[in-house]
């Protein structure tokens, strides 16, 4: 990929978006048959599938906990989801993101209801165009809801970046690769908790607070779309019944 001009003369971004504009967001819930819950989430060209199995018993009994369900999470990229083919062995990046995505879900799952069980979350990145971990969090949260897991709130996530000196919402791969900073944020809006926060890049104190505000603004739009998708899903299920 060659470096595009990230901020054009008219102040818009290389794909024509305003700095605070999301890419098109598409959400489908309940797309899989054999999983307890599932969701397919797209942020522009990024396409992520999340599936939930459980709560269930597992053979590795020794990792279970007596007073709550454990969450197990795997963030995984299909080999052809990236520009260069990804080798099938788990990368260090995937191992880190599996942890980071799991920890973004822990604060909202009411795990005490299912002691001695595991809730398994499998994230598959089908196509990667920036923001795969944030799309993963949103998809995982919706898959948990689809599986009927009780939750304190939905968690939704979005990244803010700094490109050519400008803070921009929902960066794509070109902006991530050639920009100065990438800051993914996950939030449970109704309970006011930020459950994932990473900064990959360098920001001043002022830039950071501005960036965080921009992320929360974008997240609230994703939140609305997510709730809408859930509403549609449940109504459809009801009608089908």
């Amino acid at each position, binding site marked *: 990929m060659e470096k595009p001009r990230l901020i054009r003369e008219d102040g818009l971004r290389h794909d024509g978006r305003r700095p605070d504009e999301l890419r098109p967001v598409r959400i489908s819930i309940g797309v*899989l048959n054999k999983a307890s819950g599932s969701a397919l989430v797209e942020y522009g060209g990024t396409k992520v599938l999340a599936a939930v199995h459980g709560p269930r018993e597992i053979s590795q009994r020794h990792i279970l906990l007596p007073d709550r369900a454990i969450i197990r999470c795997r963030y995984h990229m299909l080999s052809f*989801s990236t520009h260069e083919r990804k080798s099938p062995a788990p990368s260090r990046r995937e191992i880190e993101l599996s942890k980071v995505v799991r920890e973004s879900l822990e604060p909202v799952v009411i795990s005490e209801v299912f002691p001695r069980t595991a809730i398994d979350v499998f994230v598959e990145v089908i*196509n990667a165009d920036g923001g795969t971990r944030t799309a993963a969090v949103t998809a995982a949260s919706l898959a948990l809801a689809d599986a009927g897991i009780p939750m304190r709130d939905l968690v939704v996530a979005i990244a803010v970046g700094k490109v050519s000196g400008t803070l921009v919402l929902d960066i794509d791969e070109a902006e991530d690769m050639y920009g100065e900073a990438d800051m993914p944020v996950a939030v449970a809006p109704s309970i006011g908790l930020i459950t994932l926060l990473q900064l990959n890049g360098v920001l001043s104190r002022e830039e950071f607070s501005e960036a965080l505000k921009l992320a929360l603004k974008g997240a609230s739009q994703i939140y609305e779309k997510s709730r809408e998708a859930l509403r549609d899903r449940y109504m459809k299920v009801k009608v089908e019944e």
Partner: protein
Amino acid sequence: MSHTPSPGIITPKLKANTIVNMIKKGIRSSGRGLTDYRPIDVVVGYVQNADGSALVRLGNTVVVAGVKLEVGSPYPDTPNEGALIVNAEFMPAASPTFEPGPPDENAIELARVIDRALRELKAIDMSKLAIVPGRRVWIIYVDIYVLDHDGNLVDASSIATLSALLNTTLPKVEVDESGNVRVEKNIRMSPLPINHKVVTVTVAKVENVLFIDPDLDEEGVIETKLVIAVSDDSRIAGIQKSGSGGLTEAEILAALDIALKTGVSLIKTIESRVLEPTLGLSTNTLGQ
């Protein structure tokens, strides 16, 4: 070590008996006959970053296959030809019984059966895939991911593989004077050169009855199955008996006849799905 598998999610005895009795009468759930496939959906170009891809639904079974082209060194014994590498993974999303981790023996067998059929039939014209003869050639990676498991993963994977290959285009390459290769993925020159099309047809056996395209419940009752690769010119391009049972000579010959007949028409169906513009199918979902 390979070991006798535990039955996954056990089909209750009563249900199993019902399934067997119906098959013996030639009837199956949703009313299809013994040699009918479930409905097939194909969405080609499902994965933007792949050089070719297809999402396939076979009933409730969902498979995505993607092709990546990389510049690499040829095998020493075929210095002027491209190379093919086929992998398959059964994603844990697809079934509560699938574990994350490297491919197990079933996924490896599936990939190798599909790989052999393509290879033996010379389905891809490898001689057209040298870039710098003797030094740099196209390596074709076909990666198959099972996303939802409702039975007959081999046929669904073979359909996805053929569709993804038919969807694959070669990017522009430039070779400088010292032989370095530069790929421009944004400029697409030509489709992947295909000599032959091939699909597998899986014929299952229960109590001497043969039928095709078993769903997951039916796989719980079958004794064994024969995976038969069928070419577009009605030849047998590979066979794999799979499962713990056996077949008589007569059963094998009958299974072949079913496969040859079904396979050729299946290839035609796939060709039309791949080449015609997609009607009524959204790339926003898993092809539903």
